[in-house]
């Protein structure tokens, strides 16, 4: 098991360098530059532009810039934002809990609904339930997040008035964050109604963010279950007279779980990508909105370091999934 873990970790090192290089190059390949973005419509004289480029060091060869950047990152210094002049890691730390909270709730919704829906669709293959579930899943998968979010706001917040429009908690609740997780902080605050307000603010963004992963998990569960349900050992289990619930739950589902767990792990990337749009619509102060703002301002430091930090997190989650995978399936460890 340790060897397996070391092998996986060894793979991460070149990946990190690859990603840091890709992020560094990506932001510089974008048209425009941070100096002009900072100057705004008033513009900047060529002399002043040259001065600022020199000051930020963007006139030096890319190789030097990259080596300096990666050198700083290795010492834990992710740089200072060009736009806000605040340390990038500090900004990330302040905003990440909001994204993590939203993504966690979204993932819980996706798993709790997606897996049972996939199992039932597989068991009742060809039934109206199967067709309806897969139809809804396909629609969910293809739904533009921005449009979907706005539609839910207009209907549930605007028309029915059931949920708040945006934000993390009602503005009447003011307390300084302890953990950064609003559900927890609202409980700690001891203010009556705060937790309820925080939870109600989470409903719509979590549904929007969960939509695509839910669709993917439901479809993956269904196809994995269908494959397993056709296996000989399942037929044997049935022939032995085991209760259908036991056959599905113990014999079929456990074996179908491996690709489903992998899919759930991969959804972390989808959640991060989805968070960008979801957070923008719901004014959710997380890292998705932060990255969008930084790209708009060509804030090289935030984009390259932000992407790297996000990639590190996604890799860490995938590593955990790989380990879980090995726990579930001993054959993988042996390989």
């Amino acid at each position, binding site marked *: 098991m340790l060897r397996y873990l070391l092998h996986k970790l060894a793979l991460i090192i070149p990946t990190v360098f690859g990603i840091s290089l890709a992020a560094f190059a990506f932001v510089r390949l974008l048209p425009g530059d941070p100096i002009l973005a900072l100057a705004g419509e008033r513009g900047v004289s060529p002399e002043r532009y040259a001065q600022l480029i020199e000051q930020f060091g963007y006139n030096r060869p890319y190789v030097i810039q990259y080596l300096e950047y990666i050198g700083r990152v290795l010492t834990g210094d992710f740089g200072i934002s060009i736009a806000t002049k605040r340390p990038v890691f500090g900004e990330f730390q302040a905003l990440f809990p909001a994204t993590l909270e939203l993504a966690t709730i979204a993932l819980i919704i996706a798993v709790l609904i997606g897996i049972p829906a996939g199992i039932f669709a597989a068991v009742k293959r060809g039934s109206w339930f199967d067709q309806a579930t897969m139809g809804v899943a396909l629609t969910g998968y293809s739904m533009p997040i921005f449009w979907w979010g706005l539609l839910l706001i207009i209907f549930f917040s*605007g028309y029915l008035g059931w949920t*708040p429009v945006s934000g993390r908690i009602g503005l009447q609740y003011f307390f300084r964050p302890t953990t950064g997780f609003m559900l927890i902080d609202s409980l700690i605050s001891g203010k009556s109604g705060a937790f309820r307000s925080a939870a109600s603010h989470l409903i719509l963004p979590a549904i929007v963010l969960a939509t695509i992963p839910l669709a993917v998990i439901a479809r993956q569960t269904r196809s994995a279950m269908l494959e397993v349900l056709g296996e000989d050992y399942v037929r044997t289990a049935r022939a032995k007279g085991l209760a259908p619930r036991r056959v599905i739950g113990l014999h079929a589902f456990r074996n179908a779980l491996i690709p489903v767990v992998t899919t759930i792990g991969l959804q972390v990337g989808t959640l991060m990508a989805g968070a960008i749009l979801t957070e923008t619509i719901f004014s959710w102060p997380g890292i998705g909105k932060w990255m969008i703002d930084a790209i708009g301002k060509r804030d090289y430091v935030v984009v390259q370091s932000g992407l790297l930090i996000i990639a590190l997190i996604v890799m860490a989650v995938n590593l955990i999934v790989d380990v879980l995978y090995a726990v579930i399936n001993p054959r993988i460890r042996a390989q």
Partner: protein
Amino acid sequence: MKKKLTFAAALLAASVLGGMANAKQLVYCSEASPAGFDPSPWSGGNDFDASARTIYSRLVEFEHGKTTISPGLAESWTVSDDGLEYTFKLRPGVKFQTTDYFTPTRDLNADDVIFSFERQWKKENPWFSYLEGTGWEYFTGMGFPDLLKEIVKVDDLTVKFVLNKPEVAFLPDLGMDFSSIVSKEYAEQLDKAGTRQQFTQKPIGTGPYQFVDYQVDAVIRYAAWDGYYGGRQKIDDLIFAITPDPAVRAQKLKAGECDIMSYPAPADIAGLQADTNLKVDEQEGLNIGYLAYNTTQPPFDKVEVRKALNMAVNKKAIIDAVYQGAGQVAINPIPPTMWSYNKDIKDDPYDPEAAKKMLAEAGVKDLSMKIWAMPVSRPYNPNAQRVAELIQADYAAVGVKAEIVSYEWTEYRTRGKAKDRDGAFQLGWTGDNGDPDNFLFLLGCDAIGQSNYAIWCNKEFEDLLKKGKATTDVAERTKIYEEAQVVFKREAPWLTIAHSKVFMPMNKKVVGFVMDPLGIHRFDGVDVTE
């Protein structure tokens, strides 16, 4: 004694809690997060709303809803005959805000004024580079490093600005956000503690509201500053709920989650106007949307060609289709609400037949050109792509073939400045300080390579511009700028497209909010009724 103290504490707690229960709150749905709370390093309107206009004050202030100047931290001033010395008498007893992170030991004085400008000006000032990479772009952009010769403390409450050359817009410039006055004493406290960064994160000013808390990208909280020299505000708690999407801002306003919002999407305005709980204020924007020809490239170097192309465009149709009526046809390069606007100038008529004839007479045949469309929406031009399409169709009617081009926003402006740029370039401008020069400078010879996208340098116009800047008498300046507009119209370096309207939707319970022609959002003097 102990009993007395306990009773006093209980009384205080009861009054605070009672006050909290009755606290008046105003929630403003703002469009973006501020980069910081120092009013001078940044240049975005949302940065100024969150810092300069709430927390700070200036020597002079723009009157509410106007572009004229009134006394601010300076209660009076004198200008020397040669226009080179401005001496300001400071208002006595102005208090800097007291918070849990700073307690001032003295009132505002000349040292604070000098510090506020020198930190943006003098490289040897340790605060010049307290934020990595700060360029003090507004201070530099307004030409202050060249303009200022020295700032002298005459006495504690008198400060003198000595200029290198006369500058008629100097007073309005001092009313701009970057000229906000900060506390030198607070800076010194942070210097000692080695926490300079806090200057922009935990601000201290003399303005109507004091900073309470900022949850990054989410909420900014302010409280009325009891010691404000203009009197305590009626709103106790001012909250900025940062909501980047305009459609979501509109929904929040309708749902009562905010009381007032900035920049509604044109498509949402009718719905907001129809809501019985809301009112939508509107104002002519102090802006211009234009199409700049490259006057150095043939055939656009010929006046008659530029005039003919101007006459080919149906501007009224653009106002109806793109601005959805929320705008007016622009005739001059300055908006009609600006002083010195020349009402006698007639616009080039929409006359495709005459345009066709003029092009033929100028020897222009089978002209192919580019129309540049901005990739972003701006108050002065909500949809440049659509405007380009309409102009393209109008040009086609007079035999001119146009191709629409667009680039990423900063790239767009960089390419637009190229001396050999092909075709006509859409852009616009929103005024900074209400002075006509703040619009006409866009066409000055010095602005080529910066903001003069017509690459137009006309001696007659340039001389008038310089004369206007060196004249202090407003009546005389008005005449000069009226004449400059005549030259502009005759030479036609731009197709002036539109001045747009700006809308401000709010709950009917909000009273006293005055729309600002400079596009700033001020909450001093605002109240909410129950």
